[in-house]
């Protein structure tokens, strides 16, 4: 079995690529979070900037990933930024939509109560609004993580130094070698599912007060419309 022996020979490579994959995913997920949080707070404070911010992140989200990676290659060269910057940009829309929805969802009477008790603006944001928005914010982290893990593979178009597990898919195609392709594709899917599961658990731990039904807003999925409650007696 040439496939099995090939796989056993390349376990080191696999470990290296898994680590690279996690690194390439984790950095954009964290940087994107910080940028988005700042932008979301700005947008809530200054409603004028909200539209432009959301539209701009929507435009970036629309540009195909292969194109965005390729766009940076002439600018930043074969450096880690070339992979990290596009991946970060793709997280923005996911984060922003969820953070804004979370902050919008804080009931006006809660805000009024906080003001009445003498919270300052930043205190209110930190102690009241952000904690209440947490279920959606964590949901956004979950979506951003899963989405970024998938996109990391595409950075393989930039060459051997990138791609995480996607490296094996490009190499396998080049070598016309199926097992090598699977060597990249299957662990990528498993990694995405595992991270999704872990973050789902974390979501429950972090926000025990939130109902299980809180769902993150997926930019790839439309608002299904507000169904009017009602029913037979």
């Amino acid at each position, binding site marked *: 079995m040439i496939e099995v022996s090939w796989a056993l020979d390349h376990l080191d490579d696999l470990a290296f690529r898994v680590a690279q994959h996690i690194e390439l995913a984790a950095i954009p997920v964290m940087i994107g979070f910080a940028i988005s949080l700042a932008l979301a707070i700005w947008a809530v404070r200054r409603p004028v900037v909200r539209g432009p911010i959301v539209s701009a992140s929507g*435009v970036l989200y*629309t*540009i*195909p*990933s*292969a*194109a*965005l990676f*390729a*766009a940076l*290659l*002439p*600018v930043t060269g074969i450096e880690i930024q070339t992979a990290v910057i596009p991946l970060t940009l793709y997280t923005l829309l996911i984060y922003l939509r969820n953070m804004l929805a979370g902050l919008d969802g804080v009931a006006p009477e809660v805000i009024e109560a906080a003001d009445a008790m003498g919270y300052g603006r930043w205190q209110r944001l930190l102690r009241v609004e952000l904690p209440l928005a947490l279920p959606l914010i964590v949901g956004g982290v979950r*979506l951003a993580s*899963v*989405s970024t*893990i*998938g*996109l990391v*593979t*595409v950075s*393989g*178009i*930039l060459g051997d130094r990138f791609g995480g597990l*996607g490296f094996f*898919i*490009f190499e*396998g*195609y080049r070598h*016309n070698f*199926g097992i090598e*392709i*699977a060597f*990249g*594709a*299957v662990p*990528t*899917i498993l990694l*995405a*599912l595992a991270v*999704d599961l872990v973050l789902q658990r974390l979501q429950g731990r972090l926000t025990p007060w939130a109902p299980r039904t809180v769902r993150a807003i*997926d*930019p*790839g*999925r*439309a*608002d*299904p*419309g*507000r*169904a*009017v409650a*009602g*029913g*037979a007696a």
Partner: protein
Amino acid sequence: MQLVTDTIAWLLDPANWGGNQGIVTRLLEHAVFSGISIAIAMAIAVPAGIWIGHTGRFAALGTNVANLGRALPSLAIIGLVLPITAAIDPQLGFKVYPTLVAMVVLAVPPILVNCQAGIAGVDRDLVEAARAMGMTERQIVRGIELPLAMAPILAGLRSASVQVIATATLGAFFGGGGLGRFLVEGIAQRDDGMTFGGVVLVAALALTVEGAFIVLQRVIRSPGLARMEGARAAAGAA
């Protein structure tokens, strides 16, 4: 700005536009390929989504398909399909089919879920009123549910289209055609003008399609619904 001038020069060079590897051909490949994928995905997902949404049966299936679709990176799907199609058809199986399969697989979940949620989201009282007046199930779907679910259905088609265009771009790295070829060759030949020119074309195509859907969503919306949403927005602003 060497990069900008190179890109403009490449884009303006008539030699890059004609021929069977020129921009026009590549654009057509990209568009036709994406269109075929969306058509196949719609043929699968629209009837399924309508049926699940209308009957409420297998509702969990739709949600699970959506979640799975998100966890499946497009590249991984291309990768997984490659060995299979290559074994079946060594000629084209290494070039066209894997990307096409990936495009369809990725386009189905957003269309299915939005169709299902859109139909299921139509006020059940309306549906019951329609049924009580003697509409057949088919008349309810066509006359009431579909028009009222048009916004989410279009939104699903819109995100599926953007997804498909992105995946088609990626397909060029696996022997497929389309505008992604300029990225492949530009990177390989270290021709920054071509690479960036390709980026501009791909981005323009994606944004144009997205924009077209936004316009379509405005145009197709029933005046009764537009007013309802207007009223809701006004109420929200008050």
